[in-house]
């Protein structure tokens, strides 16, 4: 074969390949468009039926007919959106409808199938419906190979509101297949105050430092006084400074009076600046006269950054803290420059 004929043959092959690719692309587009049109037609039929069902005073799930798989999918998609917008009897009516048509059971089965999008959507629906029997499937999905599925499962577990999910959510922060800390935190917050007992357990050293820090932080928001002893223990003895700082902030946020002495002790003994700053903040949050001695000592410590944090905390303590700050500023000794700086900033902000 000559060079010219080889060139022609290559040109022909490339042209044929181009034509095949063009036809295949057009075919795929046509198939997708047809599928979208079919989906829109099905939704146009299911949507008014679903809204009509919800408009009834005593809706009967059997009255809404779902005659095809496509209609079932449409019902699932529409319901996932509606569930997040409803509460009360109308929401329960929608949950009954999904249960009666097997949509929730089908979603549980889909959590084990190939196709990450399907698994994520199934998790989303099970969470939106707060379908408690799905706890094992959603917990399993926290270790899914797809990161989006893992995040969807963490969000769904939060919406379930079952504290049994707390250990798995905290464990999802470590290992090879993790869930982002923000997603885990929101999931735990969604569970609410019932998560507190399991979060106390989350301070245990078998969990990672990231998990222990999140557990401590959330106990400050959800825990109440019953977790104060464990948080004081974490402030004193946890080997990770992030956990100690989170425990200090939690104690301040909770306003636990018996935390004053351990917080003041931490101000003296703690070596890590970030923990000391969190400790001053916590003493400020506790307010009143309880932490004034510790804060005054921190203000006069000679550490400029710590003194600034202590001065801010004294302002947060209220009138007694502010009066002390003014006395220190007037006295002109250690901490006076920082006290004057903070008082000036507070005055300017007014």
């Amino acid at each position, binding site marked *: 074969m000559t060079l010219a004929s080889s060139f022609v043959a290559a040109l022909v092959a490339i042209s044929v390949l181009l034509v095949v690719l063009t036809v295949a692309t057009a075919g795929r587009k046509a198939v997708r468009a047809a599928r979208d049109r079919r989906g829109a037609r099905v939704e146009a039929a299911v949507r008014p039926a679903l809204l009509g069902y919800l*408009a009834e005073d005593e809706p009967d799930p059997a009255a809404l007919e779902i005659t095809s798989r496509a209609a079932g999918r449409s019902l699932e998609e529409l319901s996932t959106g509606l569930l997040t*917008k409803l509460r009360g009897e*109308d929401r329960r009516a929608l949950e009954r409808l999904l249960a009666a048509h097997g949509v929730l059971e089908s979603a549980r089965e889909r959590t084990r199938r190939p196709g990450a999008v399907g698994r994520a959507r199934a998790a989303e629906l099970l969470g939106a419906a707060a379908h408690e029997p799905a706890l094992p499937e959603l917990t399993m999905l926290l270790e899914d190979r797809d990161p989006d599925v893992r995040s969807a499962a963490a969000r769904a577990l939060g919406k379930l509101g079952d504290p049994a999910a707390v250990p798995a959510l905290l464990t999802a922060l470590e290992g090879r297949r993790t869930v982002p800390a923000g997603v885990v935190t929101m999931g735990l917050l969604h569970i609410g105050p019932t998560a507190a007992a399991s979060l106390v357990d989350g301070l245990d050293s078998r969990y990672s430092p990231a998990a222990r820090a999140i557990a401590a932080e959330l106990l400050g928001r959800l825990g109440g006084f019953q977790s104060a002893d464990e948080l004081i223990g974490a402030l004193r003895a946890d080997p990770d400074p992030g956990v100690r700082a989170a425990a200090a902030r939690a104690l301040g946020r909770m306003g636990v009076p018996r935390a004053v002495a351990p917080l003041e002790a931490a101000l003296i003994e703690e070596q890590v600046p970030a923990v000391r700053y969190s400790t001053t903040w916590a003493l400020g949050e506790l307010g009143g006269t309880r932490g004034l001695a510790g804060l005054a000592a921190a203000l006069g410590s000679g550490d400029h950054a710590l003194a600034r944090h202590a001065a801010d905390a004294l302002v947060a303590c209220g009138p007694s803290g502010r009066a002390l700050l003014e006395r220190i500023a007037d006295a002109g000794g250690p901490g006076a420059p920082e006290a004057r700086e903070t008082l000036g900033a507070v005055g300017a902000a007014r």
Partner: protein
Amino acid sequence: MPRILVVDDDADIRDMLSFKLAKAGYEVHTEEDGETGLAAARELSPDLILLDWMMPRLTGPEVCRELRDDEATARVPVILLTAKAQEADVQRGFATGANDYISKPFSPRELMSRVQALLARSA
């Protein structure tokens, strides 16, 4: 037949309320943003307005303030419907002249009761 105007950029909520209100015997008109909602309120003279807070063009409180500044619409009862549920938000909502406040996620049944009560009071 009392006429109710629903202004919300969420199609699910608009449609759900339309079905529920129509089933209860109200004449329902819907709009999907604050600007068209305000225009509809001036044109249709509704007996009550259900108004979402966060909307494109004009927010619910902005619409509410405009309604209260206009003699023709100043006395139309308004229920604000919003995901903002903090105490300060509720106060801000009432400060714009809203008559009632429903936080999302919401119970359509509770909303229907409030609609009936507000219409009865303003009759």
